[in-house]
């Protein structure tokens, strides 16, 4: 797997094995913040950014833990690093661009418990990607997440105007939409190698 071309990795993470629709990672924000188009795209951008940072950190940690021969510490150090990365990013954005900070709001700290971030760190380690491949993989995953979120938000905004029976309203409807989207994304399966 390690000699995958960068383009294949990118396409794979974005469309074919979309993190949300094929791996079911990050379902909570996917269902939670996909009610409005604007918040959905902001959330996507924030997640992509954290993915890029934590992916490069995870690469370094994996190298370090392999060097000192302590693989059982992997999970704990990944989650600790992700939590502190999110915290750092939050402080950094607050300092550099208060406008962006206000725009992201509560979504920034919530990214810590987004399983897509930890999932990305684990997958890239399992697949044994090198540094550049990791970055491309993280970028692809982030963009894939954003695409899924924005598509879903668009659909849900339209549904606001539709008449649906009371029983179906809410999560059940959102899940059915997600199922249909996921089926549509299966159509990309033939694209990559």
């Amino acid at each position: 797997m390690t000699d995958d071309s960068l383009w294949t990795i990118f396409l794979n993470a974005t469309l074919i094995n979309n993190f949300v629709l094929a791996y079911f990672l990050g379902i909570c924000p996917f269902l939670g913040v996909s009610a409005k188009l604007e918040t959905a795209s902001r959330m996507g951008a924030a997640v992509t950014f954290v993915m890029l940072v934590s992916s490069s950190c995870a690469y370094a940690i994996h190298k370090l833990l392999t060097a000192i021969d302590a693989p059982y510490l992997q999970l704990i150090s990944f989650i600790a690093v992700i939590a502190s990365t999110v915290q750092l990013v939050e402080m950094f954005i607050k300092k550099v661009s208060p406008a962006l900070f206000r725009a992201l709001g509560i979504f920034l700290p919530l990214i810590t418990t987004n399983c897509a971030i930890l999932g990305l760190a684990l997958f890239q380690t399992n697949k044994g990607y090198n540094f550049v491949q990791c970055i491309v993989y993280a970028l692809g995953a982030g963009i894939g997440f954003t695409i899924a979120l924005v598509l879903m938000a668009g659909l849900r905004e339209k549904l606001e105007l539709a008449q649906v029976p009371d029983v179906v309203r809410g999560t059940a409807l959102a899940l059915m939409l997600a199922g249909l989207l996921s089926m549509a994304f299966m159509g990309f399966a033939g694209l990559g190698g």
Partner: protein
Amino acid sequence: MKQPTTGTDEFVKGLWKENPVFIQVLGMCPVLAVSNTARNALAMGLATLFVLVMSNTVVSLLRNFIPKQVRIATYILIIATFVTVVEYVIQAISLELHKALGAFISLIVVNCLILGRAEAFASKNTLGRSILDGLGMGLGFVLALFCLGAVREVLGSGSLFGLSLFHDGFQNWVVMILPSGGFFTLAGWLLLFNWLKQRRGGEVAG
């Protein structure tokens, strides 16, 4: 105790009234990802049950020592410890199962159900109650996972726990074991629960 609840109530509420998956819609990622066969679903459920009970126990014991500012980080570290234990145990018991569940065992760490119970219940209640709460919620989670896994396996592969159920004429609904089948099955169960609640005259939860 302010609430007039007994220990039994703490246990039973997780099974039905506050079922983590069907009613609270928490911890969706593992629910959808590994429920393509009944066996995987059950294994995942039991692993989560163990982590949930252990983390509830430890959080409840330490609740007076953990400083408020760093409590979430502390909880996550406690949970991560037990998840690592579970991961190595599963790998020792069955390598095949470990492969089937893959990274999703590690991802129990970020299951919002576990962190949610630690924050909302174990950090405020006594040891006994926290363990009962963990057991109830965990069993409710197992039950929900099993419901999903069984439906998906019966329809998608025509079998249950690997035993074939139908004769050759049955056409497998391949879509049910694919990712989209997970979304559809869960949507179906939620519809059923909403419908039941509505028939009993209650309001349908958003």
